[in-house]
């Protein structure tokens, strides 16, 4: 065992009060099974935020360790060391540096890949040297055994000085044992350190240690290395560290490299005595053989395209059945209610709440499928290969292979996609990725696309295999992708790089997706969507209904009176119509429709829409679309709900689908209002426009500056206006 300098001995951990639940942090390398373990420990009791207002940095959940003993588990992002290389990893040091912080964990569980011990232990020794009590979760013991790796757990436990629990987080074996160890608080600090700063560093380290009142030398060294990224240091503190570092001639890079090499030496010594490797198979590992196919010169791209195609097929074709079901269900419910009851409250319920709710629920199949698909790609390890395949292709546009994952996730939702860009270490690559991701057609645009495309594009076959509607949809997606790449290229020219861009990453071994993890992801995304987007949509629908139903003063009443007088006059002029009772009913219906239209026009919403009509008329839009555009700036998905609400005012409720309502809409000339050119102009507008508050909020949070979200808003909306103008002026 290593001998310890007396001064470096870590003080005993502060024991938590017995009544307070334990707080335990999970830390480990990427792909070490940390997320699987987290899911095993917490199940559905997780709090993961992907939308503004909820914590996104920390994934936490509650675990029942033993009867009457609950613990809060914090899942930290995967990392290779305690020296963060990306923003994602910085969260870890923020949490572990400050012992006084309210979220400081009582102890940590380090997940370690047993088949790859040497590298995994690097992080472990750093965590322990920081003075954190730790338990080692020796994961993937089955993989290690298959690789011929035999680990003498008892000897390793003696050498490392912390409890070790062999386990397999994917199957769940060993989790029960881990819970017992966690509940007993058998987390300990080993008696000795694995590495300590050498004599020449001690003056600097001791100075920092006493200045900041830190509990150990290694933490003080971390301050010298990381002071720029430590969030809780004041400007004065930082200035002091800068001064000290310069005064002692501290070479951060060289010292860090020395430390890493020294740690590896120590780890090698430990492993020599505790691990024996007997290679049983001489053939290449299965994963490498799969890679030969999936990253093949030609086959690799073909397979990637096929997978993308399957994804689209799933979202547009398979999702159609449950969506139709939801749509018809809402229509039927609304019709049934209106048939039995009447009054303003019933109208609020059917035309406001139900119409809005329908607009939310209808997304669920597509969102579930899209996120499910992406989760499977991520789980199997295929996403890393996509990154690998695409890197060279993306670089001319100022993006890196790592931008591909945010861009593809952007097809689902830009909010998690933008947060996914955290893994990109280079500032410039990351900013470009964040900026252009919202141009990818997200799932909120899907209903807009589906409704409008189905309205104007005939359901005709193209080249025998494709469908014209499918082709147009594909075109809209490609338009978004093209705009994203083009904008990225422009930004590449405009921005200056702050540091070199990296592309070093580990290829995870291929494995079957754990369906529980996939299901959990789908559940969380759908829940987050229904709750956060749903609340906005339903609220807007209700407000909108009120605005569309009521108007200032007695303008509405006067407009109604005027229409009724006109209708009465025309009826008296054509008495033959009154002879047939059926014709009479038709006339009455026409009167009611005209009355409703007149009331809507003089309502608050109508006045609002009319006031912006001059701006959007060149795009081929009228005041009704104007209302939908305005509400869409809160979130695009509101569009369908808004259209549904606006066009259902005064229409029969059983005209359930939005499409039917839009198709019934006539222009002043009596012709269908939604011509192909008008619908195309509107579609193009939705492809480009920045109409999502959540995206702007997350861009602000991720870039820490208003310049980026404002840039997105102005740039994308300007692009949308110009493109829609072009479409309408040329084809309209």
């Amino acid at each position, binding site marked *: 065992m290593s001998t310890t300098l007396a001064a470096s001995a870590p003080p005993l951990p502060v024991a938590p009060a017995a009544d307070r639940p334990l707080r335990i942090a999970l830390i480990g390398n990427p792909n070490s099974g940390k997320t699987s373990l987290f899911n095993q420990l917490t199940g559905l009791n997780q709090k993961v935020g992907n939308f503004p207002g909820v914590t996104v940095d920390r994934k936490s959940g509650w675990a029942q360790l033993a009867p009457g003993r609950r613990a809060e588990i914090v899942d930290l992002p995967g990392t*290779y*060391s305690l*020296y963060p*290389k990306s923003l994602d990893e910085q969260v870890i040091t923020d949490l572990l540096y400050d012992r006084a912080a309210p979220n400081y964990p009582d102890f940590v569980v380090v997940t370690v890949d047993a*088949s*790859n011990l*040497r*590298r995994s232990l*690097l992080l472990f020794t750093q965590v322990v040297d920081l003075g954190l009590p730790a338990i080692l979760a020796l994961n993937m013991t089955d993989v290690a055994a298959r690789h011929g790796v035999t680990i003498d757990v008892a000897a390793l436990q003696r050498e490392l000085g912390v409890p070790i629990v062999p386990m397999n987080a994917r199957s769940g074996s060993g989790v029960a044992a881990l819970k017992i160890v966690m509940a007993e608080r058998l987390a300990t600090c080993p008696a000795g350190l694995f590495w300590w700063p050498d004599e020449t560093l001690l003056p600097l380290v001791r100075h920092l240690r006493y200045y900041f009142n830190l509990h150990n030398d290694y933490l003080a060294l971390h301050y010298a290395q990381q002071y720029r990224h430590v969030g809780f240091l004041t400007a004065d503190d930082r200035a002091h560290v800068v001064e000290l570092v310069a005064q002692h001639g501290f070479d951060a*890079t*060289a010292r*860090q*490299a020395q430390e*890493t*090499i020294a740690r*590896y030496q120590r780890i090698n010594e430990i492993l020599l005595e505790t691990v024996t*490797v007997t*290679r049983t198979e001489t053939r*290449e*590992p299965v*994963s*490498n053989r799969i*890679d*030969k196919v999936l*990253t*093949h*010169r*030609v086959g*690799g*791209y073909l397979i990637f395209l096929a997978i993308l195609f399957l994804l689209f097929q799933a979202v547009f074709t398979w999702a159609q059945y449950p969506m139709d079901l939801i749509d018809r269900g809402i229509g039927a419910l609304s019709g049934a209610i209106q048939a039995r009851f009447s009054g303003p409250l019933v109208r609020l319920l059917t035309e406001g709440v139900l119409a809005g709710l329908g607009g939310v629920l209808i997304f669920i199949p597509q969102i579930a499928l899209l996120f499910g698909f992406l989760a499977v790609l991520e789980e199997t390890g295929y996403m*890393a290969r996509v*990154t*690998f*395949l695409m*890197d*060279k*292709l993306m670089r001319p546009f100022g993006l890196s*292979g790592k931008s591909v994952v945010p861009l593809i996730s952007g097809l689902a939702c830009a909010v998690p996609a933008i947060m996914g860009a955290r893994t990109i270490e280079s500032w410039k690559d990351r900013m470009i990725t964040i900026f252009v991701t919202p141009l990818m057609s997200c799932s909120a645009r899907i209903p807009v696309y589906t409704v409008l495309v189905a309205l104007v594009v005939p359901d005709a076959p193209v080249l025998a295999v494709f469908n014209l509607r499918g082709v147009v949809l594909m075109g809209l997606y490609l338009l978004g992708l093209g705009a994203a790449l083009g904008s990225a290229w422009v930004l590449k020219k405009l921005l200056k790089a702050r540091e*070199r861009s*990296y*592309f*070093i*990453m*580990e*290829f995870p*071994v291929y494995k079957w997706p754990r369906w529980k993890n996939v299901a959990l992801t789908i559940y969380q995304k759908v829940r987050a969507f229904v709750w956060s987007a749903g609340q906005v949509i339903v609220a807007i629908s209700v407000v909108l209904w009120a605005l569309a139903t009521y108007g200032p003063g007695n303008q509405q009443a006067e407009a109604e009176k005027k229409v009724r007088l006109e209708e009465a006059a025309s009826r008296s002029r054509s008495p033959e119509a009154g002879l047939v009772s059926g014709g009479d009913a038709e006339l009455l219906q026409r009167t009611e429709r005209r009355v409703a239209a007149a009331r809507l026009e003089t309502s608050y919403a109508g006045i609002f829409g009319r006031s912006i009509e001059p701006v959007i008329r060149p795009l081929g839009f009228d005041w009704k679309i104007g209302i939908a555009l305005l509400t869409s700036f809160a979130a695009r998905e509101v569009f369908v709900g808004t259209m549904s609400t606006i066009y259902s005012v005064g229409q029969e409720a059983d005209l359930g689908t939005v499409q039917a309502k839009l198709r019934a809409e006539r222009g002043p000339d009596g012709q269908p209002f939604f011509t192909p050119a008008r619908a195309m102009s509107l579609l193009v507008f939705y492809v480009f426009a920045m109409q999502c508050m959540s995206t702007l909020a997350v861009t602000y949070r991720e870039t820490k500056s208003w310049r980026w979200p404002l840039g997105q808003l102005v740039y994308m909306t300007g692009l949308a206006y110009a493109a829609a103008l072009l479409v309408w002026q040329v084809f309209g």
Partner: protein
Amino acid sequence: MMSLFRRPVATAAAVRRTAGSLRVGETGTICCLEDPTMALKLLEMGCVPGVQVRLSGRAPLGDPLMLVLGDNEYTLSLRQSEAATITLKP
């Protein structure tokens, strides 16, 4: 010496063997890491002097590369320019 065959002009720099100049299937042992900042990341990922590396493949467009570390322990993917900072023992 492999690089001698690949590069017609045999300057002193060209003789230097790096992970970037390996041919697919070829193996080498890490000698040192040239670029200090890159070295920190490479070290953390296990590219420590003395470790054996094998170029197991390249992306379809020639870049990035797949580098297998140790005795088939795990695979890293990195760009040609990054691999060129890893010098191998002659």
